[in-house]
């Protein structure tokens, strides 16, 4: 490595135009902090980074990164990222998209990128609202949400991005929250190290159109009791007093107090295994919500599986080895031909 990068190497000269107090600022900061670490860790030169986006507030992100960047069209970021990665697998592709961009108009590309396990890193900014178009409900808005296009409340249920990712056989799913910069940086570093499609759901606040989008879990006063940070190999404990844990109970999960009612000890508490191939427990963890359960944060799933881009490249290399046709002239003259003399 000829150069050690710092956060400022990844900052472009463009003025950041998100609203003051928007959760996106914090995600951008985490990314600009994570990428120098990733560059050092994986020996990546800066020109290998491409940041892709669709349309929406969060999709402005590529302009703020001093890397290669592509600001696409609404919903199509995932398809553009896929093309970039297949064309040149040496590039490391990051993608910023919102809940509307990835899950409504771009839902098809999103699930297929995950199914194919193409090696891209998708940051899904989830503020449960359409911000750039000024406040309409999104596919992650809570049931009954009152917005400009649902003045009497929505009558549709939201997507849980985690179940969607795991349902599409995702190999990496993590969840962060805008106010936890350190955790987000940790998630991004893990996503970079993961070979395959990494989806990072970032719960972000929209100060203008959905203020307090995640207040019920993000507020410092309640956060430790309402969320659990999962780390591979560590016990699933949480709470202000670190005395609550998750245990298996029948077919599901249960929150217990260590040393409290029922006599549960630390040994009864589950240990997080992000590398476990079976998706069952990961699905349960990703779907946990209050008031019964804490919301799971951190890397929930991180498993190995062959990637699409490797598959494309390896197949071509394999076929080339045995092919007798090496160039167009060979091909043009191959097969059924006849000579006119």
């Amino acid at each position, binding site marked *: 490595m000829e150069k050690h990068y710092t956060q400022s190497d990844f900052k472009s000269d463009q003025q950041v135009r998100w609203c003051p107090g928007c959760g996106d600022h914090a995600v951008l900061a985490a990314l600009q902090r994570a990428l120098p670490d990733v560059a050092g860790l994986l020996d990546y030169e800066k020109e290998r980074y491409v940041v892709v986006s669709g349309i929406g507030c969060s999709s402005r992100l*590529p302009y703020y990164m001093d890397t*290669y960047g592509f600001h696409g069209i609404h919903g199509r970021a995932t398809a*553009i990222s896929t*093309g*970039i990665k297949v064309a040149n697998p040496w590039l490391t592709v990051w993608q910023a998209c919102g809940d509307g961009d990835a899950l409504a108009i771009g839902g098809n590309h999103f699930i297929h990128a995950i199914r194919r396990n193409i090696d891209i890193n998708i940051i899904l900014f989830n503020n449960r609202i359409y911000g750039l178009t000024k406040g309409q409900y999104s596919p992650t808005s809570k049931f009954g949400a009152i917005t400009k296009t649902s003045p009497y409340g929505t009558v549709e249920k939201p997507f849980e991005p985690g179940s969607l990712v795991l349902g599409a056989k995702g190999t990496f799913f993590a969840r962060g929250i805008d106010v936890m910069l350190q955790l987000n940086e940790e998630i991004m570093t893990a996503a970079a190290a993961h070979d395959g499609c990494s989806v990072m759901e970032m719960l972000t606040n929209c100060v203008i159109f959905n203020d307090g989008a995640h207040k019920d879990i993000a507020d410092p006063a309640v956060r430790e009791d309402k969320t659990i940070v999962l780390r591979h190999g560590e016990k699933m404990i949480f709470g202000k007093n670190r005395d609550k844990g998750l245990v298996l109970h029948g077919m599901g999960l249960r929150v217990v107090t260590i040393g409290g009612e029922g006599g549960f000890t630390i040994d009864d508490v589950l240990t997080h295994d992000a590398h476990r191939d079976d998706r069952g427990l990961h699905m349960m963890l990703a779907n946990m919500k209050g008031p019964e359960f804490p919301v799971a944060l951190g890397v929930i799933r991180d498993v190995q599986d062959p990637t699409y881009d490797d598959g494309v490249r390896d197949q071509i290399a394999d076929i080339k080895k045995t092919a007798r*046709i090496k160039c*167009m002239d060979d091909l043009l003259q191959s097969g059924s031909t006849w000579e006119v003399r």
Partner: protein
Amino acid sequence: MEFKVTDVKDVVIRFAGDSGDGMQLTGTLFADMSAFYGNSLSTFPDYPAEIRAPKGTVSGVSGFQVHIGSQDVNTPGDMCDLLVAMNPAALKANAKWVKAGGMVIVDEDAFDDRNMELAGFKTDENPFEVLHIEDRVLIVSPITTLTKESLKDSGLDNKSILKCKNMFTLGMACFIYDRPVDYIYGYLEKKFSKKHPEVIAPNKKVLDDGYNYASNIHAIPSTYHIAPAKPEKGLYRNISGNQATAWGLMAAAEKAGLELFCGSYPITPATAILEELAIHKYLGVKTMQAEDEIAGICTAIGAAYAGDLAVTTTSGPGLSLKSEALGLAVMTELPLVVVDVQRAGPSTGIPTKTEQTDLFQAMYGRNGECPVPIVAPHSPSNCFDAAFAAAKVAVEHMTPVIMLSEGFLGNGCEPWKIPQMKDYPTITPPFPKTEVPETEGGKFHPFDRDPETLVRTWAPAGTKNYEHRVGGLEKNHYGSISSDPVNHQTMVDERRKKVDLISNFIPELKVNGEDSGELLIVGWGGTFGHLLSAFDTLKEEGVKGVSLAHFDWINPLPSNTAKVLGAFRKILVCELNSGQFVNLLRAKLPQFQYLQCNKVEGQPFLVSEIVNAVKKNL
């Protein structure tokens, strides 16, 4: 018995049957064999959209027309000399195409009550009389029975035996047109030697039996000899338009030193291009069957940003879906080839039938001021050159290019003198010329332009020192987002001028016939063969003052267009739509008066239609 052998210049044969009867294969084999024999030829598959349409019905009839000749053959022919009809429905659907004096072969066994009713005949009717072809040479043969008899000891089951009926008819056609069956033997051996060696001998036998049957029945007034054409010396092969398109793109990638990426979604009649490209991974071709049409073009745009020669292939409805992304490619000024193999529309239309109705969509079908160069191939083999040219312009001028092919070209095939890659021009991508951008501060300005061509520099992602952002938002030359009114006007003008300037890099419009005169036939794309045949016919008939100008480039128009058009008193624009190119010409060159000849039946022109239109307007 000695047979009368008649020498003829050319013949047209139409094989028709149920869509499961193997008529496409029969026709293709007859065409390939004739090409191998040295005839000039042109083919026209005419099949229903359903893979197995209702058996025995007119809507399920699949046809394959082949025109072979000892001189230049430009079209698949208007009317046929021989119709092979495997059932009453096939006879009904195709009777109108049989020439006066032509021959009809039918499978008598298929003319039972049920099939007659399915085809809409009364069971006691004589279908030949109903269709007014009772005066043609009618060969009514029990083809099914004869095939069964031929293969009764073959060990094949009944279903497999019935599948060989088409070989019996092919054998008959081989006898009538003096074709050597060796070529078919070779095909059967090659095709079945690995997986189904047991069917080789039965197929050969039934082919021979069909041949011998035709010679034994003494019902055929003459056999015909179509001498080999005398084409230019060289190595030849048969090629379809879709195959030629795929190969042209691969050739361009090789010449440009780029890897080829194709992101596509299957759609009739363009799918064969994706299928063809997928075969040639050994030449480094990356094909991706995307989740939808939009992903097809968006993956291609991503691949272009990363430095590949990027392509997406589709047909009309798919082009509609790609419109927004095509605008993105215009806005980001990335090289991209979009192949639209046009079919009958609007909406799903008639997917397997041909038309030229996407010209307006290609020209104008996007939001904003969004110019895109358009090139249209004029024959199946010319798809190679058109695809090559599309890719060359896309890369060297940093723009998406639409290639407007047609179902008629994509599915049709013709002999092609195999070119050598050394005879094709190089393609030079406008990559950065210096290690560090030559700007103050060394930052790359992605939308700085070459002063002469207005082309920007292509710095694929991964190029050291050239990090930059592109996107769908309006920006200035530095690549910074800008909604400044003056800047927007400047960028809109520059993007348009960049496309207009391509006229300096494309061939001039050529004229067949005199450079000036009474009437100029004007066409574009796949109608060329028919227009040329009409022009030749008129010349042979002694009609004077008529010339032909055929456009390959639709946008920009060739630089000498006004000069060519201005030298004729009348301009007759012939196209398979309601008047799209003619209205483009009216808008671009309003100083001229234009006459029109249009047809929107999902079928190619007949040469006679053009000839009549010219005569009417003289």
